């Protein structure tokens, strides 16, 4: 397995506060990884750096087979290179139908001219229908996504992410606000997705992480505190202090 993403020695501070402090992180192709950590550990900032929303003060972020630096790329270029992101709060385009949302996310040329003259082929329609089935929204294709329940919006966003067909998926608290049954389905989708691509899941909920059954990275105060299996990191004295000591 080759390394897909390598973050090394990255630091970023906001008004003097070090949100990320000399952080290093690696993930390989087709790997599932959970990132945990207490509030303010820098989990969201970490994702912001990878997706180009925040520029680090120092460090390197290298991605892909050719080892391109993500630090020089715009958000849209990074997304086109195959990094997809799901936000903590479900963000779908609420004024548009589920179909339109998925069609927009479908992996296609993203330039204005190509989009202007775009006509969905039968293949595209089938892909959208398949995705809708996978996320349990087949019956709601023509409803405006603003009408969906919180859980359904989470699903739709996961569906949009899969439609983008990314090589690296960054998922921020996917199970927030879901029922136990929905959580189980989400775990299945993520594990399925991780068979063909790299998936990074940021999560608070230990039970959910346990079910993912993967390597865990613990963040604390902007750096990696521990890494390994869930059992391994939960036995780590420092991790126990960080989580329970305060």
């Amino acid at each position, binding site marked *: 397995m080759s390394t897909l993403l390598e973050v090394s020695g990255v630091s970023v501070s906001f008004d003097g506060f070090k949100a990320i402090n000399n952080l290093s992180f690696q993930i390989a192709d087709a790997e599932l990884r959970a990132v945990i950590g207490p509030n303010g550990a820098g989990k969201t900032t970490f994702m912001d750096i990878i997706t180009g929303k925040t520029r680090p003060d120092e460090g390197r972020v290298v991605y892909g087979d050719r080892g391109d630096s993500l630090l020089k790329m715009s958000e849209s270029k990074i997304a086109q290179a195959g990094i997809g*992101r799901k936000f903590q709060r479900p963000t779908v385009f609420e*004024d548009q139908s589920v179909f339109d949302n998925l069609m927009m996310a479908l992996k296609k040329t993203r330039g204005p001219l190509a989009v*202007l003259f775009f006509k*969905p082929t039968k293949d595209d329609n089938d892909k959208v*229908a*398949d995705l809708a089935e996978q996320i349990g929204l087949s019956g709601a294709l023509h409803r405006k996504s603003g009408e969906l329940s919180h859980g359904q919006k989470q699903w739709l966003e996961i569906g949009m992410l899969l439609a983008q067909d990314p090589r690296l998926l960054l998922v921020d608290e996917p199970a927030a606000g879901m029922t136990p049954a929905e959580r189980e389905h989400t775990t299945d989708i993520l594990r399925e997705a991780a068979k063909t691509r790299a998936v990074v899941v940021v999560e608070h909920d230990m039970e959910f992480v346990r079910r993912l059954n993967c390597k865990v990275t613990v963040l604390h105060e902007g750096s990696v505190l521990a890494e390994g299996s869930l059992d391994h990191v939960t036995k780590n004295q420092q991790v126990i202090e960080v989580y329970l000591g305060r």
Partner: protein
Amino acid sequence: MTDVSLPRREPFALRFPSVMVFVAILALFTVGVTILSEGFGIGVISTSFVKTLGKTLCLCLVALAMDLVWGYCGILSLGHMAFFGLGGYAIGMWLMYARTEIIVLESLAAAPLPPTPQEVSDGIASQIFGVVGASEFPPIWAFAHSLPLQLLAVVLVPGLLALVFGWLAFRSRVTGVYLSILTQAMTLALSLHLFQNDSGLRGNNGLSGLQNLPGQSDVSQDIVSLWFFWGSALALGLGYLLCAWIVSGKFGSVIRAIRDDEARVRFLGYPVEAFKLAIFTVTAVIAGIAGALYYPQAGIINPAELAPIASIYLAVWVAIGGRGRLYGAVIGAAFVSLVSTWFTGGQAPDINLGFYTISWVDWWTVLLGLSFVCVTLYAPKGIGGLVDILIDRKGPNRHGADLGPDQGALREQEADK
């Protein structure tokens, strides 16, 4: 494959019935006005009113452009009337040059020697620029002798200005109210520049006599007014079809998504700036074409037409008509500008309160301002929202939440279910 109903690719007209309804109404209106006109019909509608109607159609076209850039893409531009004015200046230069050339040639024909080209050129220049104390053509008039080149300028000048300005503004991620202020500053700067006598466009005198078509002096204004009326109707019809096509497909999806949540669109991989720039430039070109049809009917253009207030009015029309629906923009522009003509033309009866007489010429702007505030507060769907009542279309119940986090995002009351 499960059995899910995907939208079938029905013909464009069937998927968007409002487009066909609009085109049909516009066609009927054009035929009706022609039949009632003095030029080709029974003479119920005066020529000056035909011109008013023709001008109104041009205003509807620029409102359409405004709706595309603001209602669909969320960019509250306060510069589109400047693009409109630039289109007017571009065509006005040719109209004025060509007509003055005919007059100069006629007066020189009596001379014993045939005039040299230099004499002709000097004659035209002193005729046109006498009012600003100049007698030579400024460089920007280099193409004024050629109709095709000036027609090209109608498209290129607003288009290029929008392209350069938009590129600078969008690239720096200027959004929301800051972008509005920036576009307004551009409009003001342009207007102030044109007010100067050495701007090369006759300062505050502007260009005049544009209603006279060069070489058509024996055709009466009754006929000419109808030519421009038809031209305006055709432009509006084609413009409407173009806009409807742009917003109907995935491009429409993407720009509406940019309006509601542009950061999210970036993470989907769409180059948001390129989309904004494209829509800003295309609408500037539409505005320029509308202006080029408007000013020959108005007869005169001066820098006051480009003042920022004109662009603010444009936003008011679109808001009163209903943002984010094409026919709303057309209804808003037509309704407000016609009512405005009625009130400011002195036809509205004054109201005598005994101690004070409300004269509508002065009080109309107050009324317009009040109705703008009322529409924004109590009927955000505008006049176009009446259509929703007619066809029983419901709004969503989102407990007051907007449809996206951005400033331009559709409000709950503006959306439909």
